[in-house]
């Protein structure tokens, strides 16, 4: 069972992502900020991380940095959710070790296509 960690401080986004991914057969773990995500990632085996950038407590960039130092998560695909005008965020994400990004707003089909691409 492929497990995806979905991180976003917006409940409606989390719900939409979870619903979409579960519908496609993935297992989903939700987190509402970077710290929450980090804690959950340490406890469960996650195959892909999908994370918003702007979040309280620990933002997406910090989350990526913190994940990459965990041996299990050195090579795990991590996708950032960014908005179009934030190219500096994309750079920051990449520099922190993120795999790539998805641009908001996206629709469920785009989400699934990208994830499929990454997970093969």
């Amino acid at each position, binding site marked *: 069972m492929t497990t995806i960690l979905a991180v976003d401080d*917006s409940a409606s*986004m989390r719900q*939409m992502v979870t619903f979409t991914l579960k519908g496609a057969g993935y297992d989903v773990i939700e987190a509402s900020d970077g710290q929450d995500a980090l804690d959950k990632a340490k406890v469960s085996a996650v195959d892909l991380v999908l994370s918003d950038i*702007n979040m309280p407590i620990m933002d997406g960039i910090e989350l990526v940095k913190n994940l990459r130092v965990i041996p299990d998560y050195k*090579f795990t695909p991590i996708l950032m959710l960014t908005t179009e005008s934030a190219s500096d965020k994309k750079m920051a994400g990449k520099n922190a070790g993120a795999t790539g990004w998805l641009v908001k707003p996206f629709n469920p*089909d785009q989400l699934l296509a990208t994830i499929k691409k990454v997970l093969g």
Partner: protein
Amino acid sequence: MSVDLSQFHQVFFEESHEGLDIMESALLNIDVSNIDSETINEIFRAAHSIKGGSGTFGFNEIADFTHVVETLLDLIRSDQFVMQPDNVDLFLKSVDCIRTMINELEGGSTCDTEQANVLKQQFEVLLDGGFSGEPEQSDASETKVSAKDETGGNGWQIYFKPDIDILRTGNEPLRMFRELAELGELSVSAVTDEIPALGELDPEACYTAWNLTLWGDADESQVKEIFEWVVDESELTITPLSLGADRHAQTESPQEVSLEEPQVQDLTSNAAPQNLVSQNLVSKNVVPQAPKPERPKAEKKAGDAKKESKPESVSIRVGTDKIDNLINMVGELVITQSMLGEIGSDFTVENLPKLMAGLEQLSQHTRELQESVMSIRMLPISFAFSRFPRLVHDMSQNLSKKVELILQGENTELDKTVMERISDPLVHLVRNSLDHGIESPEQRLAAGKDEMGQITLSAFHQGGNIVIQIIDDGAGLNKDRILTKAIEKGLVSDSDHLSDEQIYDLIFRAGFSTAEAVTDISGRGVGMDVVRRNIQELSGSVEVESTPGSGSVFTIRLPLTLAILDGQLIRVGQNVYILPLISIIESIQSYDQAIHRVSGGCDILRLRDEYVPIVRLWEIFNVKPDSKKVEDGLLVVVECENIKVAILIDDLQAQQQVVIKSLNDNYTTVEGLSGATILGDGTVSLILDIGGLIKLAGVSKEQYKKVEHTDDSEAA
């Protein structure tokens, strides 16, 4: 697969409202000269979330507008824009605007973007001219490159040398090649020259480069897209395969790959730095209209009020501790019930004490359960108070007055429905205090007061009620003006002798207004009587006290719950009524009491050190008692709003808990009654409202006196 996104709309609306509240609260407290980073980030994140969500769920008008707001916030938080004090107002107005649009969507109508466009222009002005740094470069698009690139005739020759750390970002060249293979026929060969000896090899690094040949009619943009995430840190060369070349002609020797003119095509556009920020903002579809003249305030406010009134929410958030409590109680109930079942199944008279004990326990558990369930509907009044900082801020600005708002007792809990319905009356009373109570700064200084006026909203529990007070240190009510107006409007005649408090009470009569110029805020005079009626419909009351020059106090009393009451059954003749137990002080036989007859008024009972007016229930209700004589009956001394009266009845009956049924639902409000209930025998019994009885009897506060002159506010 198609996901129905509308199932997430409600959550989005709710979280957006929360976000807007956060924005508003933070904006009201922000210190522009010394912006706290956490605060500005909080505001930014809230706007960002709303923008993201609205875009995702297709609410484009909101997304478009919020984008502008978010952009400016982003510049402020990254110190590229210096925030000015009047920007706060613009942001506050934007919050209002977004709120309105969301309400419209929630109500099922489309968004009216008129206000949004007006505000958008103001943002654009700021964004175009005001900031000090370079705008963020915005990629025109990510997944699709807008310019149509060359299409190779037969396909593409690709040279790909990823960054050495590519694997550490979770990217996998193999995955990209697989994707390429879906676009056409692919052949891949590796360039291994840079791979070090095994001993020096870092297995997590990537030293390999690749030459790939893709045949087919894929677009260059499709190829680029596959490498989108890694292109910045990699070498990527894409050249069209020459026309006519076929795969057999291609050499696959790595050494022979030669790049013709390096056609390095970066995805990040290096074109002349465009002011892409403002470009985004000049809406593609909206022709910037000449700024419309401010619509007359009254109209605007009315419109706002209409849009802002939300339907009463049908869900409630409950702390898990309350739920756990409930579960525990149900558990105990089940235990007691099974215990009683056991006693009952094999009952002998010897078990009677056990049965009684069990029933007692049952009664206890039922009561606890009931209280627990009631408490679920209880919410702290802070929810109702939360709109007032903004309201006071805006209104005091509009009126050019300086006002400080103090909130007290925000944790005081009350029933959710009561709170929702008290909100509008509270707003009206606060507006009234702001408008008519608090004087202008000049007037205040002239009167020797502090320039800054104070309005206090205070809530606390008293007996079985919640008391909410609106206190202002303004000019107080103008007794003479009120009386004059009332006589003018025919509400009273000038021969009536009215006490001060009765004069103040006149403001609650229909059709009353003393405002010279009717402002849109509260001058219309239909307000106060509607306020009182709304509160009465909640089985509550509102009174006003005032001291000229010092200020006024509006006191609202509301029952804690609308549903259940501990009642004392009383009888007058054939009629059984119910008195709220909580209001009863004591009951006494009349015949051995000292009763003073007052000509033309009520009889007064001398009770220890107090003079307590007597209310003859049979008289005000027009019913036939056993006896009309005071000496023959029972006097029940009750307290209401700091005065005591003695109600004359024939008989006391049982005490019991009653479920309050509204008279309003099917009939109308009746003065002197707060509702009805259905007794065990199926008949309807009326629940008395002491405040109403006092009014019906014409008892004024001054008739209740204590013999010694003590502080009025001290309870007996």
